[in-house]
């Protein structure tokens, strides 16, 4: 599988502040990629470099195996976190304008807009002014504007901020569908629960540096601490504490840490032999949130030590 986007040692400085410090990562084609990091980590700076809004001071960016150039904006769809539309324009007119600016012919843009209007069941919007729409409706229009020109790469900066759950789900479904159709998607956020659900791969940026990147499942595996949760009824064998490390114990459940993963079967067998009734047996994987916080505090400490 080839990569839609590849960054190599990208650097960007503003006056004395280093916003992006030698960041490298790749985004595999046709996947959803999470660009994560706390506020002020350099996410927006990176996105602005990828969308050709600004230029990197050093390093290289390849889009679809081609060095970033002036034709690329037409292949990218970007929905900024700070987004808006011309309030006085009519929805149809506005989308037509943005579509044409992305290189579509007027006829093609019109066709695409109609397609999306039908899809969202908003065919009566064409003559409405942007300012007449509710905020959620404006977001829908904004989303259409972003995907109108069928970009190869879609960059969404905090796409769900300000959306109600219904519209958020609607957009989420569209993101999945676009992925099915081969669009690669970069999803920038600091909200981890969304990333876990949606993203295939992530990069974690902190203080302008790549702290962690890779496949979500793999990262979780790498960070797991062999924790298992057992929910049971009855009494546990009294010598259990001597054989395994019990992290937490309540009336009906325990969390144990094993020295290695393969011991899980053994533990279960032992428990079954003692006759205790097992309700459930789960491996506890770290959430991205935990990994995120751990990595961010770790790197911050590094910086402090230095």
């Amino acid at each position: 599988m080839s990569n839609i986007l590849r960054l190599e040692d990208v650097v960007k400085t503003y006056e004395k502040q280093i916003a992006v410090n030698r960041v490298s990562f790749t985004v595999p084609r046709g996947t959803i990629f999470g660009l994560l990091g706390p506020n002020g980590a350099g996410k927006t700076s990176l996105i602005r470099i990828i969308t050709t809004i600004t230029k990197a001071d050093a390093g290289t960016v390849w889009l679809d195996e081609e060095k970033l150039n002036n034709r690329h904006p037409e292949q990218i769809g970007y929905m900024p976190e700070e987004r808006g539309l011309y309030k006085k324009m009519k929805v149809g007119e506005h989308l037509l304008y943005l579509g044409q600016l992305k290189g579509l012919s007027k006829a093609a843009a019109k066709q695409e807009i109609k397609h999306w209007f039908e899809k969202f069941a908003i065919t009566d919007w064409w003559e409405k002014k942007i300012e007449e729409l509710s905020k959620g409706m404006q977001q829908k229009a904004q989303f259409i504007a972003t995907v109108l020109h069928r970009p190869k790469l879609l960059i969404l900066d905090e796409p769900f901020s300000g959306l109600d759950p219904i519209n958020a789900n609607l957009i989420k479904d569209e993101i999945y569908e676009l992925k099915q159709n081969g669009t690669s998607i970069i999803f920038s956020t600091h909200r981890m629960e969304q990333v876990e659900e949606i993203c295939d791969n992530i990069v974690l940026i902190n203080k302008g540096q790549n702290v962690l990147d890779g496949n979500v499942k793999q990262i979780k595996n790498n960070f797991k601490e062999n924790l298992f949760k057992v929910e049971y009824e009855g009494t546990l064998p009294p010598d259990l504490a001597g054989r395994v490390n019990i992290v937490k114990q309540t009336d009906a459940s325990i969390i144990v840490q094993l020295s290695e993963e393969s011991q899980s079967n053994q533990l279960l067998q032992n428990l079954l032999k003692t006759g205790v009734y097992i309700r459930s047996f789960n491996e506890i994987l770290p959430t991205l949130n935990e990994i995120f916080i751990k990595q961010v505090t770790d790197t911050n400490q590094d910086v402090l030590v230095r």
Partner: protein
Amino acid sequence: MNKLGLIIKREYLTRVKRRSFILATILTPLGFAVFFVVVGFIFQYQSDDSKRVAIIDEGNILKGIVPPNERNLYFKSERTDLATLRKDFKNYDYDGILVLPAVKNLFNKNYTAYYYSPEPPTLDVETLIKDRVDNSLRDYKIEGLKLERKQLEALDTRVEIEPEPIDPEGEDATNLTSAIAAGIGSLMGIIMYMTVFIYGMMVMRSVMEEKTSRIVEVMISSVKPFQLMLGKIIGVGAVGLTQVAIWAILIPLISLLVNLLFGFDAGRVQTASTQINPGDTEALVALAMQEFSSQNWWLILPLFILYFLGGYFLYSSLFAAVGSAMGDDLGEGQALTLPITIPVIIAFYIMFVAVQAPNSSLAVWSSIFPLFSPIVMPARLAFGPPAWQIILSVGVLAATCVFFVWLSGRIYRVGILLYGKKVTMKELGKWMFYKE
């Protein structure tokens, strides 16, 4: 269509289609027309307050000839003595009593008449009475001094200076040349001044709106910030040209219609105050018209449009740069717009000097200095400045325009992405040197 074209088209069409634009474009000439009608009415208005004045001619100045009744002022010679009149004033149906004492010395230049009335006379009544007495006194003195009326009239000489070229082949000017040129010059200067402000501010507001409505980041992910800025400047400039062109047609047209409808003649306002006889006025108008049409319009008009474009591009690009640095708060931007508005205002004042002394060194150098030239040079054009000055001025202006648009582009691209920060002039300067 290329992207710059698309931007220009949008900027132009959204403004031209706006109701406020259509209203302003149509209502302004109508406003002018209403203004002229009202002004004309006011000037033509005469007091409808009639006065009857009794004259007691103690000095026999009138010699029995009562001054003609005019403008609701009725004179009547009265033989009753003043004391009786004053006592029985109510029974006599007069509004005032004018007493003309005898002239003791014909060479005395001062003369005092007395006017008795319940209330002091109003200004217009006083003026009218003064005029009548003055005329009568003049006739009285001419007779008393045994002067020849014709000789006296011969003393009133009207002096005119007729300009003639040294070079016998040169263009012959009339004594109206510089007045007409000054008129054309100030008009052009004022138009330039207004358009720079109106449309420059329009660009600035529009940039601010794009920034505060957060559309700008969406836009510049498709087009270069410079394209967006340039497209806006050109689009708004086209709106300005459209509006000025419509006004140039509508204002004379509506004025003409109003004149026909109300029968009001603007010329009368002028001639009423200065006492030029009708024949002279006609000759003057004819001369002015001839002078007006003898101007080299084929040179002046294209140059005017050139300076319009130059001034507009220069200042609106600066306004765009400042707009990009501002937040939603117009007041906070005052400190930033001031450095732009000051040269415009200075140029405006220099322009008035330039139409009076078009070849003074202040006028000449100001019309070459690019921040002033768009306003000062059009004011000088009608005076036929030397070709080298025009060429130098246009050249400097064009170069400065390109430079300023480029410079503003550099400030703009940084400014539009910066939120929630109060920006100083110093920072704007720094942005010019930012890398892309």
